[in-house]
């Protein structure tokens, strides 16, 4: 009993409960047919949401008003740049990845400069930079129809005993980031800043250095997502990042991270990402139209945040 009580106190448990509930309903409806395949597909697709979700989580955790809206355009730019540089050749894989990471680094740096030097609120800063990034991606990637290197395509779609390899890698990465969040100086500093920036500063935390690292982390993760996603989907497309704006914020919120900042957890992101995918799958098996699927997705996000509630004036 004590174990259950302890579990129910964890913010992330709800996203997993939701995930299993939706999966069971789907499995019951189909009579258990293909339930394993559904999980496998969910793992593949959730992986990408988790990558950007983790970056978004760190940004949101640094306090109210902090959010990265440039994730979709960074995904688009990184994918386009990597594909063009690699030109479908395995030999260029490392260079392509490096270019991709470079994109992320540059975007993060630029975002932070706007926030720090021009004192633009993060939402507006990342929004305006996303305009610039997207334009760059459009101009650079016009008519881009380059296949990813076979090795990358294989790696991103490979499966071991029905479990996507990439998902295993990202689960390990999530464990690592969970340690970073809870056990390292950086992670503790992010939480402290989110709880009270001034107190954190008075306690001797290098607030600006931490914020800088956080925005760079988010952009680099978005770039990695773009790189892997273009390998997964057989090439980069300019709108492939689009759905990740809402998805990255939604998984953070549904996963039990406080939007007011200062309270975060990594496991919930996996649960929430799986939940979101399985929910759409469930509505699909019920034969719901695209409109209904959109409405349900939106309503569930609003319902989750309404139940979770806000505890402080926040944005």
């Amino acid at each position: 009993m004590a174990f259950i009580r302890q579990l129910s106190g964890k913010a992330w448990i709800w996203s997993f409960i939701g995930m299993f509930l939706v999966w069971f309903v789907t499995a019951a409806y189909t009579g258990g047919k293909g339930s394993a395949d559904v999980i496998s597909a969910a793992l593949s697709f959730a992986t990408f949401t988790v990558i950007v979700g983790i970056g978004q989580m760190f940004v949101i955790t640094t306090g109210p008003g902090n959010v990265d809206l440039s994730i979709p355009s960074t995904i688009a730019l990184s994918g386009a740049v990597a594909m063009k540089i690699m030109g479908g050749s395995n030999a260029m894989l490392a260079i392509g990845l490096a270019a991709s990471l470079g994109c992320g680094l540059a975007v993060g740096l630029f975002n932070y400069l706007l926030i720090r030097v021009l004192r633009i609120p993060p939402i507006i800063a990342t929004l305006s930079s996303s305009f610039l990034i997207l334009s760059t991606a459009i101009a650079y990637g016009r008519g881009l129809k380059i296949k990813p290197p076979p090795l990358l395509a294989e790696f991103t779609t490979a499966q071991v005993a029905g479990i996507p390899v990439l998902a295993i890698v990202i689960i390990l990465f999530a464990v690592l980031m969970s340690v970073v969040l809870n056990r390292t100086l950086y992670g503790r500093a992010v939480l402290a800043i989110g709880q009270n920036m001034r107190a954190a500063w008075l306690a001797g935390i290098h607030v600006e250095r931490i914020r800088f690292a956080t925005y760079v982390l988010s952009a680099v993760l978005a770039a990695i997502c773009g790189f892997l996603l273009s390998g997964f989907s057989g090439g980069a497309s300019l709108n492939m990042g689009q759905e990740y704006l809402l998805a990255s914020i939604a998984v953070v919120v549904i996963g039990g991270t406080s939007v007011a900042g200062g309270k975060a957890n990594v496991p919930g992101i996996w649960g929430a990402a799986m939940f979101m995918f399985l929910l759409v799958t469930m509505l699909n098996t019920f034969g719901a139209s695209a409109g209904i699927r959109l409405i349900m997705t939106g309503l569930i996000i609003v319902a989750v945040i309404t139940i979770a509630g806000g505890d402080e004036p926040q944005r």
Partner: protein
Amino acid sequence: MLAYLTTPRFLRAALPAASFAILLAAIFYVQPRAMSYFGMNLMLQYTVPIALATIAQMFIITVNDLDLSIGPFVGLTACIGATLLADTPALGLLALAGCIAAYAGLGALIHWRNLPSLVVTLGMSFVWLGVAVLILPTPGGTAPGWVKAIVGLKTPYVPFPIIAAAAIGIVVHLALMTSSYGAVLRGAGGNPKAIGRAGWSLLKIKMVMYGAAGLFGVLSGLSLIGLTSAADAHIADRYTLYAIAGVILGGGEFVGGRVSPVGAVIGALTLTLTGSFLTFLKISPDWQIGAQGGILIIVLALRALINRREG
């Protein structure tokens, strides 16, 4: 006089108008033929829906919230306008009234549960889009004749979009900046606690502001289909970003209820002109959104400079 003209307060107020004037001058320099009734009309025709969406966003920003769903919402009202309103006007009006009520309800929900507007509106953007797709699965429909007639009005001397934009700015300015309840509404963004202690209902204020945003979203959708004469669920997806950018370009502050309706309209005009400017410079449309982002950053940089002088 000169001392007044260089005060941070004046500079800040003049910045939106100055950036608009500079952009307009640059356009006339590059393409003198744009300096005509027809040219202005063509360049600015989409100002009206964008300005209305910007004002809607401004109402939300006034109470320290942010609306990430105004674009899909405008798309939904456009779809309703091109289908229900055209076929069965009574039902259409009822649906549009329902949209406004839903917005006011959102304001109540956000206040009641103290929710982050960012997440709520992001979720709602899916709902609006979903409803729009249900109403109009494929692009189409026809705008009601009277909507087209109003938007296509040929006014003497000054093109209609300019008159309409000016009227929108002035009406909202009178309501929000000069009326006593308007001051209370803005105060709810500046210091909600004080307004609450003074006996005003913050719930009602949020509902009024969200409702007003809904109303202007509806007007934006209708004026948009008046121009395009058909609708599509995705017709206004970009308006979310345009609207935020317009408010900020127009001198609105992100927190504290410091907004400017006239500035917001000018901000919308500036954004619309950016597109034409790039076309005249023969720069590829690829860079259009990039240029809008660039202008946003430049204006914000200038404002940061002005604010720094204020100390």
